[in-house]
């Protein structure tokens, strides 16, 4: 196989190119009309260190640019989180949500929203909700991981079942919280869970980038073990893979990336499931291409979806989680039907 592969296959130059184009497109989408030439001027001025002080400049530079940037990071993180989970479960229908991550984050965010009135001021800091959601996601995934880890061996089936149990429990607890919430809290919880890329400013985004990059690199380093895991744990072990260590790293990376993203954005469904899957359909199952291509497709898809959110009902805005779920769910159903046909 290797011999007939060109030195620079399509994805190594085609995807980065598309990535830049899609970011440009996303930057140009929005309720506030900014003509392309104007956009170039504003970006050029900012690049030279003299950003304009008109409204168009501030829309482009302080609103859209950070949304595209966060969208790219979040899309990449969610997609790679999906890649890790699908490699771990050896199942293309796996999703970080399976390990109770999103529901744990949502539960923590809801709990904080409801108790915010009775907490000291430090706790209602703007960082409080992301931090709590992040810890909530880590906690539930950690719990699932601990329970399914028997004597240093992770049993994938029990992890799956435990994930379902934790999801159900978190769902029920959120239900209880919604029941005791007052109107304003109810609304805040609903808005948070819909998801938005608009809550992240420049500094937070830089921090997120710094936190996410090592995980991206680590996933890339795990590409060979992930490939070998596809043929089963026993085979992978006989080929020299530290199976348990790899599995632990996969859970860790996925959990780290997705918790970070979800903590800031709220729930954004189906990116982690659909993007790796599309990538596999186009570029094949090898993680050597799957990892970088998923990363780039994720970084492409989410900013574009967010561009749609900003324009479809402008000047009002759609929640991003709704748009990705609307686009992702039909695709998921299609996948299920296709699998059924094949079987």
């Amino acid at each position, binding site marked *: 196989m290797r011999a007939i592969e060109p030195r620079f296959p399509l994805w190594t130059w085609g995807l980065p190119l598309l990535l830049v184009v899609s970011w440009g497109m996303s930057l140009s989408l*929005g*309720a*506030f*009309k900014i003509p392309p030439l104007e956009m170039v001027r504003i970006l050029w001025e900012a690049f030279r260190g003299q950003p304009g002080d008109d*409204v168009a400049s*501030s*829309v482009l530079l*302080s*609103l*859209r640019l950070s949304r595209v940037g966060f969208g790219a990071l979040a899309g990449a993180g969610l997609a790679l989180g999906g890649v890790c989970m699908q490699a771990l479960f050896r199942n293309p229908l796996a999703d970080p949500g399976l390990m109770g991550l999103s529901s744990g984050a949502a539960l923590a965010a809801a709990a904080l929203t409801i108790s915010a009135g009775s907490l000291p001021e430090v706790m209602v800091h*703007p960082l409080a909700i992301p931090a709590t959601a992040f810890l909530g996601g880590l906690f539930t995934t950690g719990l699932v991981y601990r329970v399914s880890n028997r004597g240093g061996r992770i049993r994938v089936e029990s992890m799956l079942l435990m994930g379902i149990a934790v999801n159900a429990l978190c769902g029920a607890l959120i239900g209880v919280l919604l029941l005791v919430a*007052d*109107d*304003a809290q109810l*609304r805040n919880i609903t*808005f948070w869970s819909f998801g938005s890329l*608009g*809550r992240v400013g420049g500094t937070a985004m830089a921090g997120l980038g710094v936190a996410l990059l090592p995980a991206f690199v680590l996933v890339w380093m795990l590409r060979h073990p992930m490939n070998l895991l596809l043929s089963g744990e026993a085979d992978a072990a006989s080929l020299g893979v530290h199976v348990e260590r790899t599995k632990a790293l996969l859970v860790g990376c996925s959990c780290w990336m997705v918790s970070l993203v979800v903590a800031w954005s709220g729930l954004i469904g189906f990116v982690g499931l659909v993007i790796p899957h599309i990538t596999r359909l186009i570029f094949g199952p090898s993680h050597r291409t799957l990892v970088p291509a998923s990363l780039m497709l994720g970084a492409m898809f989410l900013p574009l979806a967010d561009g749609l959110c*900003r324009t479809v*009902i*402008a*000047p*009002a*805005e759609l929640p991003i989680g709704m748009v990705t779920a609307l686009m992702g769910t039909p695709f998921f159903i299609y996948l299920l039907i296709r699998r059924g046909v094949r079987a």
Partner: protein
Amino acid sequence: MVKIKIVLITILLFAGISYAETRVVSLGSVVTETLQALDATDSLVAVDASSELSDEQSSLPRVGYYRMVSTEGVLSTRPDLVLGTEDAGPPHVIKQLRQAGVDVELVTAEKSLEGAVTRIVDIGKKVGKQEQALALAQPLKERAENPVEVLPSAPKVLFLYARGAGAPMVSGTKTGAAEMIRLAGAENSVAGFEGYRPLTAESLVASKPEVILVTTNGLEAMGGKDGVWSLPGMSHTPAGKEKKIVVMEDTFLLNFGPRTVDAVDQLRSRLTE
């Protein structure tokens, strides 16, 4: 000659621009209603989804639900002033709008006569119509100082609200509806909790309402009067037996704006019918 004309036209154009009114975005139906009562709607360039507009202005862009507007959406209407209640948001959007140089004025969201007076006066100040605003708020102020007496029968009123089919909510204490019931001289049949809760058959029967109060939109969502009377438990309440229901238009009943004294009087008279 042509040159002079061009110069003159240019001057006129620029004069026109500099005298152009400030561009206002209103977030909250009570704010829009107040601007209408103050005859200050010419400067409106966009409103939120809950605002009601006159026919001439019905084509104004809508920037979405006022608690969840988007920064760019609001900025795209190029406003000088964003006028809303404290509930307008989310907070990071308000902050971003201010950073973009837009004057954002948030008036109180309190659901009471006193709140309505403050709100009207503050909005009037912001749009340069102080005197009109004071006059507009005067009846509300007088009513706040001299509330009506409790109705001799003091009927127990239950306010029901629904956004979609199924799952109607009941109003407990400390809501706009509860305050309207109190102002009209009646009694809220539910006193056990604050805010809105989902309706249950048993609590409905236990609260023994004599009159059901709903809004026009709420009634529609519950499937009309028949829908209300067929709610589980309703037939065992005094209101259900006598089919006593008062329907009032949503913003008229719940806005706490310039029309609120009329709304209180109307509610009072219809409760005693």
